[in-house]
C-alpha cells in the first residue's frame, strides 16, 4: 500500500486515490467528488401527503441547445423517479444501474421494488467505487422518489460516499443550503402534490442566482395519487401555473422590499 507521495515542499499527499485515508481519517477523493456535486445547479425533492415532487434548476449554457435536452430527471421504474446533481454522465450511468436493479427485483420477486431497498442497493454500488484506486468515485448525488398504494410516498437521497438517507424534503447542488432553508418553512406533510408543485417551482426560482447564472429551464416532475402512481414530467398546464405562481411570488417579495425602504 503506497502512502502519500512527498511533494516538492515536503508535504505528503493523501488525496491521490480513494484507497487512501488521511491522518485525520478522511478519504479526500470522496470529498472532492462531493465538491463536484456542489458545482452543479440545484435539484430538490419534497415528499407530501400523497406523493413526491421533484424540481431541477437546469442551467442553459447556450441558446443553441434544443429545449428539453440533457434532462436531469429520469424514470427508473414506473413508480420511481430520480433527480440528479453533479456530473451528468455519471448520473446517467447510475440511472441505468438503478433501472436494472428495479427490473431484476420485479423479475425475481413479482412486485414493485420498495424504494428503501432500491436506494440501498444503488448506494452500495456507489460505495464500491470509493474503495479502490483503480476507479474514481461517482461525481453525482441523486434523489429517488416513489409512490405506491402500500408504502405511500417515499423519498431517498444518495451521495458520492455511498450513503442513503430517507427524507421528507431534500436539496442537492450549489444552492442546497438556501433551498433547505426554504423547504424547512413548508408543512409538507399536510400538502397535496398540486399545492406542492407550485411551492417547488417557487423554491427553485428563489435559489436561482440571476447574476452568476443567466438562463435556466425548470424541470418539474411528480409521482403520487394525482398520477395514479406513475412518475412523469408535470403536464404543461400545471407547469405553467406553477411557474406563474413562482414568478409572481418573487415579484411580491421584490415589491415588499421596496416598501420597506
Amino acid at each position, binding site marked *: 500500500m503506497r502512502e502519500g507521495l512527498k511533494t516538492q515542499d515536503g508535504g505528503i499527499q493523501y488525496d491521490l486515490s480513494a484507497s487512501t485515508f488521511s491522518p485525520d481519517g478522511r478519504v479526500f477523493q470522496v470529498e472532492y467528488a462531493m465538491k463536484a456535486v456542489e458545482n452543479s445547479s440545484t435539484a430538490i425533492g419534497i415528499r407530501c401527503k400523497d406523493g413526491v415532487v421533484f424540481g431541477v434548476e437546469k442551467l442553459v449554457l447556450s441558446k443553441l441547445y434544443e429545449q428539453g435536452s440533457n434532462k436531469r430527471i429520469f424514470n427508473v421504474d414506473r413508480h420511481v423517479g430520480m433527480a440528479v446533481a453533479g456530473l451528468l454522465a455519471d448520473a446517467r450511468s447510475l440511472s441505468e444501474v438503478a433501472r436494472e436493479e428495479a427490473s431484476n427485483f420485479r423479475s425475481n420477486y413479482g412486485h414493485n421494488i420498495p424504494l428503501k*431497498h432500491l436506494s440501498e442497493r444503488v448506494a452500495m454500488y456507489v460505495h464500491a467505487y470509493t474503495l479502490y484506486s483503480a476507479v474514481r468515485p461517482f461525481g453525482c448525488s441523486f434523489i429517488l422518489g416513489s409512490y405506491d398504494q402500500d408504502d405511500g410516498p417515499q423519498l431517498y437521497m444518495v451521495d458520492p460516499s455511498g450513503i442513503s438517507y430517507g427524507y421528507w424534503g431534500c436539496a442537492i447542488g450549489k444552492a442546497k443550503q438556501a433551498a433547505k432553508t426554504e423547504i424547512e418553512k413548508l408543512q409538507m406533510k399536510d400538502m397535496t402534490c398540486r399545492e406542492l408543485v407550485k411551492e417547488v417551482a417557487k423554491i427553485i426560482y428563489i435559489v436561482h442566482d440571476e447574476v452568476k447564472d443567466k438562463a435556466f429551464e425548470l424541470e418539474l416532475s411528480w409521482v403520487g395519487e394525482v398520477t395514479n402512481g406513475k412518475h412523469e414530467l408535470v403536464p404543461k398546464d400545471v407547469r405553467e401555473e406553477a411557474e406563474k405562481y413562482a414568478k409572481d411570488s418573487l415579484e411580491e417579495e421584490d415589491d415588499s422590499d421596496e416598501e420597506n425602504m
Partner: protein
Amino acid sequence: MAACMSANRSENAFSANDLVPEWAQEEVSTGTTIMAVEFDGGVVIGADSRTTTGAYIANRVTDKLTPIHDHIFCCRSGSAADTQAVADAVTYQLGFHSIELDEPPLVQTAANLFKQMCYRYREELMAGIIVAGWDKRKGGQVYTVPMGGMIVRQPVSVGGSGSSYIYGFMDSNYKPGMTKEECLHFCTQALTLAMERDGSSGGVARLAAITEDGVERRVVLGNQLPKFSNV
C-alpha cells in the same frame, strides 16, 4: 380386471438394471391430494399423508404442508425429492430477501420464487405446488404453481393425483365468504373424498390455518374422517 391383464411382461420382469427389482426403481412420489382455500383474514391448507414408491407406501404419515416462512406455507405434490429440494431453495431465498427488506415477505414473492425455479427447470422437475399464506398487504392468498411453472392466484385450489376426483365437490360446495371453521370443514370433506377414491392418497388428513396471529395445525386421523358412503 382387464386393466391388470394387459401386461406384456412376465411377473418376474426386471428392467435394464438387473441388480435392483422394478419396484425399487420407481420414483418416490407424493401422489397426493393437496388443497388451499382463502378466507377473510387468512388461508386454510390441507393435504393427505401418503408417500408411495410404486405400490409400496413408503411413508403413511407424511407431512406435505411445508413452512416456507412464518406466515407462508407450501403444499407439495409430485416427486418428493424434487419438491423438497425446491422448497428448501425457496425457503433460503425468501429468508434472505426478508432480512434484506427488513420486513415479512409477501406471499406473492414466495409464489414467484417457486415459479421461477419450476419454470426454469421444468424439463427436469416433477413438482406441483400450492403456495398459501398471509401477509399484511393482501391478507390471505393462495397461488397455484402446477407442473410446467405457471402461476395463478385462486380463491380455492386443489392439486395432486387425487384432485381429479374432487373438482366437482369443490365447484359445488365452495362459497366465497366462508369462515375459518367452514373452510376447515370444507377441506376435511374434500380430502376425505379424494383419499377414498385415489389409490395414491390416504392416511391422515393434515390441515393448517394461517392468519396474522400465526399457524394452527390439525390432524384428522383415518378413523375420524367423515363418512360419506354407507356401503
